[in-house]
């Protein structure tokens, strides 16, 4: 099944085509979400949101970029929005946290504890948004600069510049 054929079938609402899409991309999208969220349950929730969004808006996909780039774009947006929502709980979030009903993910595995305590990961979280996206896609996902540029809808030289600035900012944070 080539990409064009797959998109046509998805637009026609074929469940088999949607299952094929999930087989091909689900794990990759889950890992991309995990790269931003560092929590398995949150990454699974956001992965679900990504594919529901894909199902809803496949008709809007123009095919200007690869399907996988479009999926990554949705995953990045959903993951960052998830983080923003989680961080903007504010006063009510504090009350919920105090009552233990926040539903916020707390580290419950050794790895999640390491993630929370790791200085580099903390510094990545504090990077400006575009630098964070470029750094995570390039260094966590090991995507080529060309792929990162396609996902971010920018040029390769802009990605190089974002990564250069991201590394400098990370070093400054680590030096503190």
């Amino acid at each position: 099944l080539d990409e064009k054929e797959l998109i046509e079938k998805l637009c026609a609402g074929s469940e088999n085509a949607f299952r094929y899409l999930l087989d091909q991309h689900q794990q990759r999208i889950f890992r991309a979400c995990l790269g931003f969220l560092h929590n398995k349950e949150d990454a699974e929730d956001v992965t679900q949101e990504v594919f529901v969004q894909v199902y809803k808006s496949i008709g809007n996909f123009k095919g200007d970029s690869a399907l996988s780039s479009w999926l990554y774009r949705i995953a990045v947006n959903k993951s960052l929005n998830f983080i923003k929502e989680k961080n903007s709980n504010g006063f009510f979030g504090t009350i919920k946290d105090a009552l233990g009903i926040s539903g916020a993910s707390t580290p419950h595995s050794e790895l999640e504890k390491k993630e929370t305590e790791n200085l580099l990961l903390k510094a990545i979280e504090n990077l400006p948004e575009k630098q964070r996206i470029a750094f995570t896609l390039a260094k966590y996902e090991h995507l080529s600069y060309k792929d990162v540029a396609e996902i971010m809808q920018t040029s390769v030289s802009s990605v190089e510049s974002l990564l250069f600035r991201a590394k400098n900012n990370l070093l400054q944070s680590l030096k503190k």
Partner: protein
Amino acid sequence: MNCNHCSSHLFEFAENSLTGREFEAVSEHIQNCSHCAKLVAEIKSGFAVMKEEKTISADPWLQDKIIARISTREKTGAQVPVLLRAALRLSFVLVIGIATGVGINKLITTPADEVQTSVANTTGVADAEEDLSGSENTILSLNE
């Protein structure tokens, strides 16, 4: 090599992507500079956590959950507008009915049958209230 020059290569060094003279120069500097050595250790530890995290797989049922969510969405997506349309139609009929009733009452009311009309009005209002509360229940159950 000084710290400034070294720090521009620290990420590449931590990722083992430096080669030749640059690799040797950074290695030598790090052996003699605890500050840069600490930075390399932090970066390496971050990359190690990322590598470990990449071994996590999604729940094997995730695909089924996504398919189920889409199926549910399709079903409710088709039902809710129909029910909402029905509720709106019902509300519209009720509003027109009440308005017409009130209008007719005003037209035909005379001092002689004021008492009777007042009883009729009360019943009408009570009926209308009952209808409204009925429609409110429908909306509540819809929302559920």
